[in-house]
């Protein structure tokens, strides 16, 4: 395994209780590039991302992140802040009263001071083109605004790797363009789930299709 490898999954099996397996001895290697993940609804894309983040445990197989084998919560814990993970539903991600609070949450957890966190919040908001959003109440935001802020919460951690679950959902054309610019300037490797092939083609070097519990390169 080269030092370039960020994520390595081997023989991952996962099935929700009482249902046929979603992932069936799946293998995947992510190097220093941004790749796409496509597949029909319900094929297990979100499930796969949750396994990578250690949020659910595969029934078989190993997860290796940045060269470290992760099988328990304590292995994932220090790695998660290095991964910018954006959930499919932003409502699941934003839980602080105001946008600024939510953006500051990650940095504060990492031991940043109030001032440092505020600085991060300002930078992220500027990058997202949401300068005036700091004091907005998170539940009052529109679907697209929530999605952008959710991306911001991931960026606030200054991640080494991005994992985005349908980032263009709810976004209008302008916001998608903005998102494309942001991702392009970040130049981070990672994994992007999307049904928006147009967007994927512009952003990623190549894509994988998830079907019948396995990945195939497309």
């Amino acid at each position: 395994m080269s030092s370039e490898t960020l994520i390595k999954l081997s023989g991952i099996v996962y099935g929700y209780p009482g249902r046929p397996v979603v992932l069936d001895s799946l293998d995947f290697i992510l190097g220093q590039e941004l790749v796409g993940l496509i597949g029909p609804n319900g094929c297990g894309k979100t499930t796969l991302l949750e396994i990578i983040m250690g949020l659910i445990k595969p029934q078989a197989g190993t997860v290796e992140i940045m060269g470290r084998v992760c099988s328990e919560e304590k292995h994932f814990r220090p790695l998660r802040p290095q991964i910018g993970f954006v959930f499919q539903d932003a409502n699941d991600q934003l839980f602080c009263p105001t946008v600024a609070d939510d953006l500051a949450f990650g940095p504060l957890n990492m031991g940043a001071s109030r001032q440092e966190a505020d600085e991060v919040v300002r930078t992220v908001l500027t990058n997202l083109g949401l300068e005036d959003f700091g004091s907005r109440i998170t539940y009052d935001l529109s679907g697209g605004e929530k999605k952008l802020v959710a991306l911001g919460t991931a960026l606030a951690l200054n991640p080494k790797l991005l994992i985005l679950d349908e980032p263009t959902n709810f976004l209008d054309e302008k916001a998608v363009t903005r998102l494309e610019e942001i991702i392009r300037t970040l130049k981070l490797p990672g994994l992007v789930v999307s049904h928006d092939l147009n967007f994927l083609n512009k952003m990623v070097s190549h894509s994988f299709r998830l079907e019948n519990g396995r990945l195939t390169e497309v």
Partner: protein
Amino acid sequence: MTSNGLFPDWLLRTDPRLKVILLVLWSFHLAFLSTVIAAAVGLSGSFLIYLISGQRNCLKGLKSLLAINSFLIFIWLLLPFSFSVPGTVIYSLGPLDVTREGVNLSVILSLKALAITLGALAITGSSGPYDLLAGARKLGVPEKLTALFLLMTRYISVIGQQYHRLAQAMRVRGFRPGSDLHTLRSYANLAGLLLVRGFDRAERIYAAMLCRGYRGRFFIRADFKFKCLDLGVAWLFVSLGLLVAGLDVIGNIN
């Protein structure tokens, strides 16, 4: 929230820490009153506080005051009568005797309930719940408790929205509540779904928090300064409190 322009918006600009203290003290103070006159003056005091709380939509606030009346109905249905509060009979309603003591108690309880609610509305309504929580945290309220309230205030509205969306979805498909089994079953489904979704969401939120390095500590943004205005507001509350307490003592002697 901005001032309505007619009255000063002092409470709006008061230090949240002070507000938490005032909220607790004022509510308890009112709750211990035992004379009609003191309770009435207490209610006027709460009204005064409400006026300076800088709430734009006075009527909306006063409407929520009406909600407390549904509780008061029970007081008035039970307490004035001799079977619950025996005493001097002043009126007979068929087999039921209305007692002076009963009516007196009902009046006091009603006034106090209204006064406490109005005071709380004024204090909590003049700053977001988050400011108050930050204030409470600064005053040493345990983190677990404030985090609980923080998430609750954040998600009550989400659950509310979800409820409305589901209810709308039901209505769009021609659902009309009636008094039949179908209605009951539909409501049961709705409630069940809200619970399941709530639980699901809680798990996802926790996952999202873990992803951002959550280790059990919550940070609420707060940088408060005690100002002259705060002294003024505190003084106002203390004066009102003393006035009410004085009236109560005098009333009890007589």
